[in-house]
């Protein structure tokens, strides 16, 4: 019985080691601050929707553009060209201060940028 208890505690310790590590080093003990683009009004959809579902929206955009040949997106806010670099990053030109801050915080690594151009980076070249 004691054996089981000790191994259970050991197991839980190992499992929660990463969490403890992050708490201890303060790596996640902050709230990421994003810099939305200035004076551009609302995004493609309303802020709450974008915050929650932008990845799903991008996925739909991807399939619509590439597979169905739909090149424009219409929402209450207007008509938009479906383009990650041309529409999203046109506004959010500060990818490092916007996209990356949240993604880094959550440990999300979207693979978009292995192909899609980041304007700030390409301009530098």
């Amino acid at each position, binding site marked *: 019985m004691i054996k089981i208890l000790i191994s259970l505690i050991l197991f839980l310790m190992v499992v929660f080691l990463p969490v403890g590590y992050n708490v201890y080093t303060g790596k996640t003990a902050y709230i990421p601050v994003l810099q939305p683009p200035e004076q551009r009004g609302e995004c493609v959809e309303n802020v709450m929707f974008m915050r929650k579902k932008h990845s799903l929206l991008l996925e739909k955009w991807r399939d619509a553009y590439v597979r169905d*040949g739909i090149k424009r*997106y219409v929402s209450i806010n207007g008509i938009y060209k479906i383009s990650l670099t041309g529409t999203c990053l046109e506004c959010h030109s500060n990818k490092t201060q916007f996209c990356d801050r949240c993604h880094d915080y959550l440990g999300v690594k979207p693979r978009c940028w292995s192909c899609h*151009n980041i304007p700030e980076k390409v301009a530098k070249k």
Partner: protein
Amino acid sequence: MNRRDFLKFTGILAIGVAAHQAINMLSGSDARQSQKKREKWAMAISFSACVKKEGCKACIDACHFIHNVPEFGNPKDEIKWIWQSPFETVFGDETNVFTKSMLKNLSVLCLCNHCENPPCVRVCPTKATWIRKDGIVMMDYHRCIGCRYCMAACPYDARSFNWREPEPFIKEINRDFPRRSKGVVEKCNFCEERISQGFLPACVEACTERALIFGDLNDSDSEISRLLRTRFSIQRKPHLGTDPKVFYLF
């Protein structure tokens, strides 16, 4: 995603499609086309016009710049969307000992044939490549698993695999078109992204000799339809039943 969000979402997409069609209806030239049959895009390449300027590679440079095609400088990793090849290698079955010497110096411009019956589409295990209703054989680089079955299946050498990370080998990155990552197959897309905006393909636009003619086969008044009716044309390896939509004019 909950149900309400989902409905909202699909609703928005539906509006998107409808609006897209509405916009097409409103813009004059498109209005006529959308009431007709769909387009069937094709290209004709005139041998005589193409050889006029010796060593000209304007179309290749334009295409490879616009589409961020890398240049590795070795044949093993080579990636090409449009390229030149000696006549006897492209039209081996049409070559005899006499034409060999006559056409020795003739380089033939090659690109994806956008076959009506594409073997690459048949073999793809993930539908990462497919034929659109307008006849363009498309690639979805998001879905390709890099099995290279399509490369084995293509009789025209039109498909290239990214054996290594291409980005460092792109001379100048064109911001408006994505790059590819290592591990996927790529090829010519008939400038699908330009056609949808009403532009001609980049290679066609770049050619100063008007050797490349692009147009709609379903429109009997289009230039390409008229040319193919009046001039003698051949296709690459028609006996394989692929029905290429790139024609070579004599």
